């Protein structure tokens, strides 16, 4: 079999194993959290009998191992279980499924992440290549200075500054990004513009600097000198000879930043009141709504593993030694 296929299959298999291991860790961590849902919702005055009855009704009385397998078995069939808090009001009401809670939030998060990525990935690649090309020029120094600044400043600060300038002083964008599932596409874009911009400032800096470093790292190679001595202009040297060998490190940093866009943007969500999955998870932790927390954590792990897997695969398929064995 082609070694590429073998290697990729190996990585995919490893990814699945990692995900399973992570699911155990998530479950164990949440098991170890102090306090439990039943006493939190029923208050301190509840009698032990009421608490026990309530725990039985939502299945918390079973041993952890059993609950883990019930949970993971459900997840494998696409069933993340039912939210505690919606079932919570003791008298009943209709229990909401975790999927129905997470669904719209996840699509919001993916929309914001996709929107941000669509602009920032090409932008940072271009800036990184240009900075490498005009190394030590005014352009390079300026880009470096600006990106260093945006990395160094906390993101909520960037977010508030942007809001102050672009929504309050000059009302170009919406200061709040409160969207609902039936918001039309263009309004959605307009409403999420500010959170997207503040996230871009953070991740463009990372990706651009890594792209620049990956390219510059290669510029000392003998084949780059050879390309110069073939009479190629600097731009051709970088695009044809450096970039094809830099995809692996660039892919890794892009994957890390995309993962960050999915799992790490709760601050931006809070500032702009954007109904993303990060906020949902924080709220659920506060409410001890264990099924939702578990599902969110598992989704985050999946995003990380999947994106890193993609970066690995990019690294593998752009390596001619693996792609074209002897």
């Amino acid at each position, binding site marked *: 079999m082609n070694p590429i296929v073998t290697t990729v299959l190996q990585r995919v298999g490893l990814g699945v194993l990692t995900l399973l291991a992570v699911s155990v860790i998530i479950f164990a961590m949440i098991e170890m959290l102090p306090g439990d849902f039943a006493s939190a919702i029923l208050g301190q005055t509840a009698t032990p009998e009421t608490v026990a009855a309530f725990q039985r009704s939502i299945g918390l009385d079973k041993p952890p191992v059993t609950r883990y397998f019930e949970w993971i078995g459900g997840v494998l069939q696409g069933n993340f279980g039912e939210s505690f808090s919606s079932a919570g009001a003791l008298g009943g009401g209709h229990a909401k499924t975790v999927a129905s809670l997470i669904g719209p939030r996840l699509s919001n998060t993916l929309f914001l992440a996709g929107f941000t990525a669509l602009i920032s990935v090409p932008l940072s690649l271009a800036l990184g290549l240009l900075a490498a090309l005009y190394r030590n020029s005014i352009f390079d120094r300026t880009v470096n200075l600006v990106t260093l600044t945006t990395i160094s400043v906390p993101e909520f600060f960037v977010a508030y500054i942007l809001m102050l300038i672009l929504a309050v002083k000059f009302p170009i964008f919406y200061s709040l990004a409160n969207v609902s599932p039936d918001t039309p596409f263009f309004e959605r874009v307009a409403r999420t513009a500010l959170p997207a911009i503040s996230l871009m400032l953070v991740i463009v800096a990372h990706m651009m600097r890594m792209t620049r470093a990956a390219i510059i790292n290669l510029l000392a190679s003998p*084949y780059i000198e*050879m390309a110069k001595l073939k*009479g190629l202009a600097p731009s051709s040297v970088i695009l044809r000879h450096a970039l*094809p060998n830099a995809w692996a490190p660039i892919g890794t940093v892009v994957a890390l930043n995309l993962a960050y866009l999915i799992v790490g943007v709760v601050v931006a969500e809070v500032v702009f009141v954007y109904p993303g999955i990060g906020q949902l998870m924080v709220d659920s932790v506060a409410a001890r709504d264990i099924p939702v927390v578990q599902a969110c954590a598992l989704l985050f792990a999946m995003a990380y593993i999947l994106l890193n897997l993609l970066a690995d695969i990019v690294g593998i398929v752009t390596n001619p030694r693996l792609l074209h064995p002897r």
Partner: protein
Amino acid sequence: MKPSAAPLLEIRGLHIQGQSGEVWQDIVKDINLTLRRSEVLGLIGESGAGKSTLGLAAMGYARAGCRILSGTISFDGLDLIAMPEAEKRRLWGTRIAYVAQSAAASFNPAHRLIDQYKEVPVYHGKSGEAEAERNAHAVFRRLHLPEPERIGLRYPHQVSGGQLQRVMTAMAMACGPDLIVFDEPTTALDVTTQIEVLAAIKELVRNSNMAAIYISHDLAVVAQMADRVMVLRYGRLVEEARTGEMLAHPRQPYTKSLWAVRSLNKSEESGGDVVLSVRGVDAAYSGVVKVLHDVNLEVRRGRTVAVVGESGSGKSTLARVITGLLPPHKGEIVFAGKPLPPALSERPKDMLRRIQMIYQMPDMALNPRRRVRDILGRTLELHRGLSGAARENRIVELLEMIELDAGFLNRLPSELSGGQKQRICIARALAVEPDLIICDEVTSALDQIVAEGILKLLLRLQKELGVSYVYITHDLATVKAIADWIVVMQWGKVVQQGPKGEVLTPPHHPYTELLLSSVPEMRTDWLDRLLNARRVGAQATSA
């Protein structure tokens, strides 16, 4: 070939400096160079002589960290110093081309060979894709590359070193340049591979009207290529002469010293008790790739066994097996009359002490953050239990043995020259009074004079201390200098072994013959004669 009157390249009073840390140092100074059309000029010197810098300057190119301070470089009447970069780029690849030392590193790993070839003519608008491809096939055929139509479809890592170097030469020819700069094109190759590349280059240069600058540290190689030779040292000209004259009557002692190692010849000795014997050893990497087949050899006290072979012959693997780094599959190793446990971890500490190793790259064998005192002292503590004044005295004693003094105690490896570093490695091996030292290509990375010094030191130490050497090398001149017994290896097998005098005098085993005849000799007609002889030989066998 009669050179035409107007020089193609004229360099006058060239002064180039390079930055090392904060200071600028002279790399090339007061160099005048004239090259006529269809003439080949050899540049020769040791590392740091400034020959690559000068070769690149002939193209109007200075590496990062180098600056051209003064002088003129005129190529066909064009001033290469004043010329803007964009205009120089129009010359590069089309009228002046470059062939780099390591083709493996100088081809882009991400592109097919044919695409890297075509890039030159297509980028410069000299020809279309299809035409460039047809030309490539023709040049590949002229350079005797196998499957000229198909080899270009491969990636650099799929082609052998010698073939890659020929493809690079072909690439330099792509636009029919007036001048090619060859920068040590065969240095990284085995002797038998070197011949095929030398032959290809020679044929190309002879059958075209172009001029060439041929850079090498090996005078015997340059002698096959160049009409005229310039010897450089510390960036200055030592002497310049027609090639034949330079070989016959070198005027400067420095020129003579460039073949210092060739003049060493140890008188062969035999006898002594057997220290090490390797019996029927097979070894493989990761249990699959078999690299040693039934290797047998014996090392006697106070004697040197030279293991000779080209890359891939298994000679370094043999060293790993003897030291226990790679336990053999089959066979046994007997040391001082007792069988050695195959794996390093099973060997008692005293056994480890008695077999020491010295490596090819002293840079990598020394911890860059430890001073000479600690490098030697640590070994003394570990194996000899010395400390305090006793340790200090012994270190100084060791330094004296390797002809250095106590002034070196506080130096870091970065403050030593290549030869001094290798001496420290030798002292570290000697510190524990071993019976056997395995020397793996210990002089390959060193200049001739420095290598000669190291070889003399090894010989002296052997005489004084009675230590035995297993000396691994690909270089037959070194073998002559140091060996008592020679083991010739090819593809993991011992093809011939015997006392030095016997192995080096005919009749040889065919592979030994090939190796010996492939070592360039100090005659201008060596390559032509050899190729003729081999052609005749090939015809005779095919007839």
